[in-house]
């Protein structure tokens, strides 16, 4: 099955330095299946026109593709309505949108915003900026020694001044599925909304925003096999309607005079300017692929085999410290340090062996500090990775370590 999947990803047949590419940097960006490439090509070639306004044929095709994609995203997330789905340029843009617009409407001096210590900078810095702007206070939820969120201390961190909690579904470093539903339950008891950064989560987990009951859920297209520059923000209608626009411009208006402008209803209010209409509809085949992988027993079996194999090999090596250890909530994403071998040296050597891994601070400097490391090596797997690749990775890692020690 994996072989079939691999055939539909042209980028995977590449060789680097004369060796077959082993791409294990999927948490940074995934590759794109032929269906995504074809969707983009057919839009560019056959339906390239600016959406919504013009009455000509091509504009109709482009608008239909774009708005149909919104329907499909709503169905993919089980959102109550299509108006609660806003297209963005990615997860970062979506967090910034909420941090700005929700902040303008609801955050005042002395109020509090809560994030976790394990957040990607994208779900941290926008909140820091908001807190600076509003003289609000940023509170931080810690992690346990095994990398899980310290949910037991959440109650104590919340107060009547807490206006929003922003948390990742799955950390891009620790690779653990966070208990989002439990967190939402705790926060909602106090009437506090929760934003979930699903950049990693949507790739690995089935997301039902009504079941999670989160107030905002967002993700990037490029980590989910779609074109770069695409992204989604789901927001509950009650918040989205109360929030002022993030950017002003074309498309987001209802009526404009020189004195005053009234804004378009949702979702247009948050989609100012020309949208990424060639790329956004690539989310449709991308979501189809992601869903098929989740529902295919043999794909899941291979993913589980990779998870267990790499986990076992890494945790039994006395030189390696893995961060994010509970296997029950682990996805096939491994961040670790090797005693005596620098992450950058390891990544450089693995690169020459054809293996693409990430090294460094993973856009999560506060987490690095919390873990007491200067950086990590990360291998993150996708459904198109095989067990053979995992074995080659482990063998190559051993070889690289031997070179360095």
């Amino acid at each position, binding site marked *: 099955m994996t072989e079939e999947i691999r055939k539909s990803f042209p980028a995977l047949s590449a060789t680097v330095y004369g060796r077959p590419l082993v791409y294990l940097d999927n948490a940074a960006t995934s590759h794109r299946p032929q269906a995504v490439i074809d969707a983009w090509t057919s839009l560019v070639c056959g339906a390239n026109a600016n959406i919504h306004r013009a009455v000509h044929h091509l504009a109709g095709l482009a608008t239909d593709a774009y708005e149909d994609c919104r329907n499909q995203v709503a169905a993919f997330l089980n959102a109550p309505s299509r108006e609660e789905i806003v297209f963005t340029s990615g997860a970062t843009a979506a967090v910034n949108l909420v941090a700005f617009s929700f902040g303008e409407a609801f955050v005042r001096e002395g109020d509090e915003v809560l994030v976790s210590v394990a957040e990607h900078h994208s779900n941290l810095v926008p909140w820091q900026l908001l807190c600076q702007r509003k003289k609000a206070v940023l509170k931080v939820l810690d992690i346990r020694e095994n990398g899980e969120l310290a949910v037991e201390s959440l109650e104590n961190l919340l107060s009547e001044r807490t206006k929003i909690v922003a948390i990742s579904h799955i950390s891009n470093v620790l690779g653990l599925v966070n208990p989002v539903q439990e967190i939402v339950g705790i926060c909602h008891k106090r009437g506090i909304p929760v934003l979930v950064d699903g950049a990693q989560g949507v790739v690995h987990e089935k997301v039902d925003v009504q079941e999670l009951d989160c107030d905002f859920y967002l993700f990037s297209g490029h980590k989910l096999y779609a074109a770069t520059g695409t992204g989604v923000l789901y927001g509950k209608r009650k918040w989205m309607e109360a929030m002022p626009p993030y950017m002003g411009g074309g498309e987001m208006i209802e009526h404009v005079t020189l004195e005053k402008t009234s804004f378009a209803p949702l979702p247009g209010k948050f989609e100012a300017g020309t949208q990424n209409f060639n790329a956004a509809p690539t989310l449709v085949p991308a979501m189809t692929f992601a869903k098929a992988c989740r529902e295919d027993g043999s794909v899941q079996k291979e993913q589980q085999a990779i998870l267990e194999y790499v986990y076992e090999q890494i945790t039994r090596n006395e030189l390696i410290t893995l961060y994010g250890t509970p296997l029950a909530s682990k996805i096939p994403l491994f961040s670790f340090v090797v005693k005596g071998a*620098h992450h*950058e*040296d390891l990544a*450089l050597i693995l690169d*020459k062996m054809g293996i693409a891994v990430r090294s460094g601070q993973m856009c999560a400097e506060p987490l690095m500090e919390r873990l007491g490391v200067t950086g990590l090596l990360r291998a993150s797997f996708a459904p198109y990775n095989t067990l053979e690749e995992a074995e080659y990775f482990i063998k190559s890692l051993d070889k690289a370590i031997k*070179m*360095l020690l």
Partner: protein
Amino acid sequence: MTLEEKKQEIIEGFSLYEEWLDKYEYLIELGKNLAPFPEEKKTEDRLIKGCQSRVWLDSELRDGSLYFMADSDAVITRGIISLLIGVYSGRPAQEIAADDFAFVSEIGLKDNLSPTRANGLASMIERIREIAKSYGRE
């Protein structure tokens, strides 16, 4: 040995290895043998920005020549530093300041190292040049 002869020696030493993994073995060996750098000198002002690994560079002027000492927490980086220091340490500041550092491209270091590493290398070269220029003016 002139600066050019010194460079040629490094280029020839490096060209012995065809495979990049062997070149890395060589750099690792050089890195491991780099002269120890005192812990107390690993200060913020000696730290070079732009590298994924941390690099510290120190210098002193003795009898009209500039000497460099450096360290990194990554061993391949230490190997690269060792190459650079091997070429430029003990040279007059003005000669270093006037050099084009092109030999780094000649041994393929810039092209074959990862982009972040190339940035780190550029930052190292920039710092060596800055130091040389500042002494050269005195």
